[in-house]
């Protein structure tokens, strides 16, 4: 028998107490992992942003359109290698249920997939998409979720752009990796613009925002300034920023919720730390006499510290490990339940690292006070304790 075996035997002394404490830790780490994954999912767009893409939008608000005529002027600015654009279409698919929501955008079919190489679309599908004006491309997640395939008709009820819009699916893109959103739908901006020319001519000839590719990411500030200076005196002033900053501005709209989630995730860890500390304090107090006996046999204060801290670490690491193991299927289930709400929903490496770190730190911190107290107990005082 060695000391770790004594730790294990002590853990089995109050099986229910140990099991419940481990379960508490497992639930805390699971909740922490899930909340952190939600926070990470919120930032997925920011994290997936390319450093060589700039976004130009109306200086006042994203909701105001920009003239299509800006395109050629932007393309002439030095260090701009390609320009594309998009318009937020929105609309309703089937009904207004949140799980039927996915981003729908009118795009420049000729250039959009050049600007977004992370959307992998077979060449023949891209060519078919470019050729057919009422066609669309959808993400693989959408195709799977709604059982859609190439050739199907996708009907969207317009709201920002009223009408009954029908699109033929000509392509299904797959994400380059798991950080890329595969829940979007793209269709021809020209299709939208032609309809607007007929139904609401005053709205035609506009795009939602421009996507600019630059050769050198270090030129981003200069190019942004050049673009905005170009339209400084026009009716629609622009604001150009990196794609990351653009995505960040969306996330910041929900910053209070995200911050709350982050705080809650840390509060959960704090609560379980106190629960574990309470358990270890109770256990150590019950065994003061035993620790005194061990000291009479020649065990040192370090041995006693190791016994108490080891027990705490054992509980926290096993409990945390169980919680972490269950985090994977729970996150997968959560992601599957809300595939379009959280297009990218994966456990980040940083979340795993934090969960593992907290499992260890909680065990260590929770044991500090009782371990020091037990280690420093005077033998004669400990032997007087009623066991």
């Amino acid at each position, binding site marked *: 028998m060695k000391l770790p075996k004594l730790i294990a035997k002590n853990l089995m002394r109050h099986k229910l107490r140990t099991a419940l404490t481990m379960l508490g830790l497992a639930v805390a780490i699971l909740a922490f992992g899930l909340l952190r994954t939600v926070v990470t999912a919120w930032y997925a767009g920011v994290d997936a942003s390319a450093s060589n893409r700039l976004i130009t939008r109306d200086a006042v608000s994203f909701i105001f359109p920009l003239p299509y005529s800006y395109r050629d002027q932007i393309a002439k600015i030095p260090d701009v290698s390609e320009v594309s654009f998009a318009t937020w279409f929105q609309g309703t698919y089937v009904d207004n249920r949140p799980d039927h929501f996915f981003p729908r955008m009118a795009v420049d079919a000729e250039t959009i997939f050049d600007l977004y190489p992370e959307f992998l679309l077979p060449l023949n599908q891209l060519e078919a998409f470019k050729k057919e004006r009422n066609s669309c491309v959808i993400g693989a997640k959408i195709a799977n979720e709604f059982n859609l395939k190439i050739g199907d008709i996708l009907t969207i009820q317009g709201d920002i752009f009223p009408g009954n819009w029908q699109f033929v699916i000509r392509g299904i893109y797959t994400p380059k990796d798991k950080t890329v959103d595969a829940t979007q739908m793209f269709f021809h901006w020209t299709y939208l613009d032609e309809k607007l020319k007929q139904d609401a001519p005053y709205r035609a000839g506009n795009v939602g925002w421009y996507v600019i590719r630059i050769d050198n990411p270090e030129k981003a500030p200069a190019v942004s300034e050049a673009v905005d200076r170009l339209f400084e005196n026009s009716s629609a002033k622009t604001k150009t920023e990196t794609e990351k900053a653009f995505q960040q501005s969306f996330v910041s709209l929900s910053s209070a919720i995200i911050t709350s989630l982050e705080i809650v995730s840390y509060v959960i860890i704090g609560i379980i730390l106190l629960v574990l500390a309470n358990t270890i304090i109770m256990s150590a107090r019950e065994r003061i006499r035993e620790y005194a*006996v061990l000291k009479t*046999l020649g065990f*040192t204060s370090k041995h006693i510290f190791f016994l108490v801290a080891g027990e705490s670490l054992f509980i926290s690491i096993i409990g945390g490990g169980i919680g972490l193991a269950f985090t994977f299927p729970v996150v997968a289930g959560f992601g599957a339940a809300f595939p379009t709400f959280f297009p990218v929903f994966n456990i980040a490496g940083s979340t795993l690292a934090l969960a593992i770190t907290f499992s260890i730190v909680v065990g260590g911190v929770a044991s500090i006070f009782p371990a020091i107290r037990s280690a420093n107990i*005077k033998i004669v005082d400990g032997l007087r304790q009623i066991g």
Partner: protein
Amino acid sequence: MADAIVQVHSVSKSYHRDSIEIPVLQNITLDVPEGEFLALMGPSGSGKTTLLNLIAGIDRPNSGSINVAGTNIVQLNESALARWRSRNVGFVFQFYNLMPVLTAFENVELPLLLTHLSKKERKEHVETALNVVGLADRIHHYPKQLSGGQEQRVAIARAVVTDPTIIVADEPTGDLDKKSADEILLLMERLNSEFKKTIVMVTHDPRAAERAHTTQHLEKGELIQ
């Protein structure tokens, strides 16, 4: 007469309760020869357990020196004193103080975890000790599966398994019925006579003291000659 293995010289000890100093031992001088079986007797509060604790190195005097097996234990720091205890002292308590989660074998093995013995060697030592106390057939029993007398015998096996220089026993029969107490005292006599162990035993029981070679009486912190 054999050389003194325990030399207590001018030892005083007092405790503090809040701001009040309570003297427990006053200027105690005592020699215990090697191979001795000494009984310390006296009324409650006379300081006999305190003297035993000082000899065993689990408490420190306010003044004086305590030399056990050639080491002035008063000068040792905590970790050195712990090491010294593991090699030189075997403890027997009134209430056995066995680990309830460990079997008899594991309880006896505890002091050996601090040695460099291999698992096989530890096993041999533990089995020998349990054989000496007559509990070879109870090695896998937990304390709650043993009688009081058997528990105390396991505690004695734990005390002797490292072959210590001295055995200190604090009221070893205080919690036992007469039959079990007699068995324990017989065992201690055997450890003294057969295995030449020096024993210092605190007891209230005159029948227990009769088994010792020598009896010293303490009263109000002083040895009564």
